[in-house]
């Protein structure tokens, strides 16, 4: 542990006093505790290490809850130390007392209340073990003030195994054999990967690439899994799910054998469950047995670490003498290429001077210009349309470089997460792709950027609406835009200035490249306020309750309402 994100308060003053007397751990003072947890998430996801948070009792702990649930849903390893009133006051409604272990029990993978100083060292060792082992997640250690004031003996980490928590990481060879038998016999195979591959470390992504190439099969990824397989590779069909590509979703719908590695058949991915990939035999690899058969029954369940399972699959694939049906596979690819030819993400950008900027174009230019720069680039996002456009148009080719709030969908995640990423990678380019509504949820962290001179770039796609809410209201609620207009917005350029950052603005397409270039060239924190088309919707879209073959395509596609066939699309 090198960095800790926190905010002081009465109950944790003894810990802050100890921090004052040392130099080994760097403390980053956030501006609100929620920011601390998201920062630790960004730190953890970009490094593979455990992110550490320190907050005080009561409101400090309750402010951290959103971040904890966010980390729980996205399987991010976090250890969060919370202050607590002294043990003799617990239960007395003392000042800044909250039942932190009670509140965070369903918000964490596990939590502890330390009631004896002699337990402290053991609990801390155990908390780090639990946070990073198996399916990673957040762990809270609630620390009454008397426990942290009294001297506590340090004990080394235990050499024995945990008494009850020992996740299985190596797969069962028999299930690997069954999986290979299914995959070798496939005529229309599909590989679907998720955040589990990222969590399993860079070696797992490497194993994924080797396995996918060895098979020649098409692959897709969830939002959380982007970057594990290079997006520009021809075998990658793009993201799947609610705002996934036409080809990825139709291939999922039409496949006969599906291999899921480290994804959890989330509802944003499956659409209507009883119409999800109806004719496929499914293999599911997950380190968490409770993820298997939770939403979608599968034929071959494999419990294990994604990296180890992929290595085992690759070895078994190469050893198995059975030939794949190359003719069927070629036919399958021909079908996929037809879907791909639809170019479902295309949009039209007017180029005349002063033309309104399409949000997709802004992301595309950001991608192209950062790529041309050649610097190591990390992207975080807030939540909404801009997040989906970033996932669609920013093409990730490395794991751990894409930080987004997937499961919980927490607006306000991106800025503090970018802060955590930049702390871990001081020389890298870290960009928060944001919306004007989301960014205001944790805008106070601009102060943290200033204090620690973190040159995070905030790239706001400003459409003056909570865009995804507006889109759903347009499509599902008769265009009644109830409370989704971003009224009374701040002047983001002046706001940046007041936080000692650089403020830039682009209002027409001719200004976009200049603003991006200036942002990328700056060695300071930047807010780039990009005025984009307020009416633009995010397509393709599988409406809630619809199936993968019932996607709505964008207005670019003349046949968006035409193809009401089994494998076509249905306009809702």
């Amino acid at each position, binding site marked *: 542990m090198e960095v800790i994100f926190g905010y002081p308060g009465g109950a944790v003053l003894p810990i802050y006093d100890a921090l004052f007397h040392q130099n080994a751990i760097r403390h980053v003072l956030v501006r609100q505790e929620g920011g601390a947890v998201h920062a630790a998430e960004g730190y953890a996801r970009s490094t593979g290490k455990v992110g550490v948070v320190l907050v005080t009792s009561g409101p400090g702990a309750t402010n951290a809850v959103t971040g904890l649930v966010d980390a729980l849903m996205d399987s991010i390893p976090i250890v969060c130390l919370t202050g607590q009133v002294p043990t003799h006051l617990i239960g007395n409604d003392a000042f800044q007392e909250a039942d932190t*272990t*009670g509140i965070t*029990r*369903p918000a964490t*993978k*596990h*939590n502890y*209340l330390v*009631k004896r100083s002699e337990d402290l060292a053991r609990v801390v060792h155990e908390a780090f073990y*639990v946070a990073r082992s*198996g*399916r990673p997640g957040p762990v809270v250690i609630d620390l009454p003030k008397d426990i942290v004031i009294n001297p506590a003996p340090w004990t080394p980490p235990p050499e024995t*195994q945990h*008494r*009850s*928590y*020992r*996740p*299985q*990481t*190596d797969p*069962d*060879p*028999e299930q690997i054999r069954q999986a290979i038998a299914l995959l070798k016999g496939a005529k229309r195979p599909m590989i679907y990967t998720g955040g589990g591959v990222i969590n399993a470390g860079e070696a797992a992504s490497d194993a994924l690439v080797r396995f996918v190439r060895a098979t020649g099969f098409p692959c897709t990824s969830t939002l959380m899994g982007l970057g594990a397989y290079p997006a520009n590779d021809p075998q990658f069909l793009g993201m799947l799910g609610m705002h996934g590509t036409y080809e990825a979703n139709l291939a999922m719908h039409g496949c006969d054998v599906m291999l899921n590695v480290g994804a959890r058949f989330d509802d944003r991915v499956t659409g209507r469950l009883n119409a999800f990939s109806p004719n496929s035999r499914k293999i599911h690899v997950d380190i*968490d*047995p*409770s993820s*298997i*058969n*939770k939403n979608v*029954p*599968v*034929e*071959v*369940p494999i*419990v294990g670490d994604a990296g180890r399972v992929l290595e085992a699959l690759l070895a078994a694939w190469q050893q198995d003498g059975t030939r794949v049906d190359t003719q069927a596979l070629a036919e399958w690819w021909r079908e996929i290429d037809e879907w791909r030819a639809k170019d479902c993400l295309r949009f039209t950008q007017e180029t005349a001077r002063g033309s309104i900027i399409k949000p997709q174009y802004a992301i595309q230019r950001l991608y192209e210009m950062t790529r041309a720069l050649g610097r190591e680039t990390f992207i975080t996002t807030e939540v909404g349309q801009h997040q989906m456009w970033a996932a669609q148009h920013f093409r990730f080719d490395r794991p751990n470089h894409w930080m987004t709030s997937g499961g919980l969908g927490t607006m306000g995640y991106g800025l503090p997460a970018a802060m955590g990423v930049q702390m871990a990678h001081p020389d890298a380019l870290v960009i928060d792709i944001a919306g004007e509504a989301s960014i205001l949820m944790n805008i106070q962290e601009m102060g943290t950027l200033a204090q620690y001179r973190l040159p995070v770039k905030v790239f706001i796609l400003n459409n003056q609406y909570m865009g995804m809410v507006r889109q759903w209201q347009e499509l599902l609620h008769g265009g009644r835009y109830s409370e989704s207009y971003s009224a009374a917005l701040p002047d983001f350029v002046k706001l940046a200035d007041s936080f000692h950052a650089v403020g830039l603005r682009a209002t027409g397409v001719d200004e976009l490249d200049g603003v991006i270039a200036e942002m990328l060239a700056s060695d300071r924190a930047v807010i780039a306020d990009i005025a984009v088309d307020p009416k633009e919707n995010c397509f393709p879209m599988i409406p809630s309750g619809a199936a993968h073959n019932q996607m709505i395509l964008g207005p670019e596609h003349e046949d968006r309402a035409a193809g009401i066939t089994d494998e076509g699309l249905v306009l809702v």
Partner: protein
Amino acid sequence: MRGQTTPPQFLPLQTVSPMPIDPTQRRATISVLVENEAGILARVVGLFSGRGYNIDSLTVAPVDQRGRSRINVVTSGTEMVIEQIKAQLDRLVPVHRVADLTMEGPHIAREMALIKVVGTGEHRVEALRIANAFRARVIDATAESFVFEMTGGTEKLDAFLDLMRPLGLAEVSRTGVAAIARGKRVIDDLHGAHDA
């Protein structure tokens, strides 16, 4: 087969069996061996309420010298839901073992009830006669009341209570189900004795 392929340090419980789709509900008696630590019951109960599972009965008590407690849960759901309940229980950090007694072979389930029946005359006589037939013990008696103690399966207790209802059934206190496998199998051995 599994014993050979899985290194002993891993819990074979973590393996998931292929799942048939079956919409029919079944009842399951699940025993959970847990670390006897603060909040463990809240964790288990919160898991059931948070994920919308049924609890028909729940008992908990310390069971050994190693600081472990046993929780017995009677629940019901489709096969998919019950498998999910077991998997969710098993991933709680302080959980040692989850055993689905209903699936893992013959088992015995018992609960105890204290049953207060208030009445006089014929009802009182009839209540005592039925109690004898059911082998309920009288543990408190006054001129106008009995408290019966009765141990047995849930169905037996339910049947007895049904009969007592018209005879002045006034109050019931039940323990919930305690369950154990028949024969020499023990819960540690159901999945290998890793903690021995």
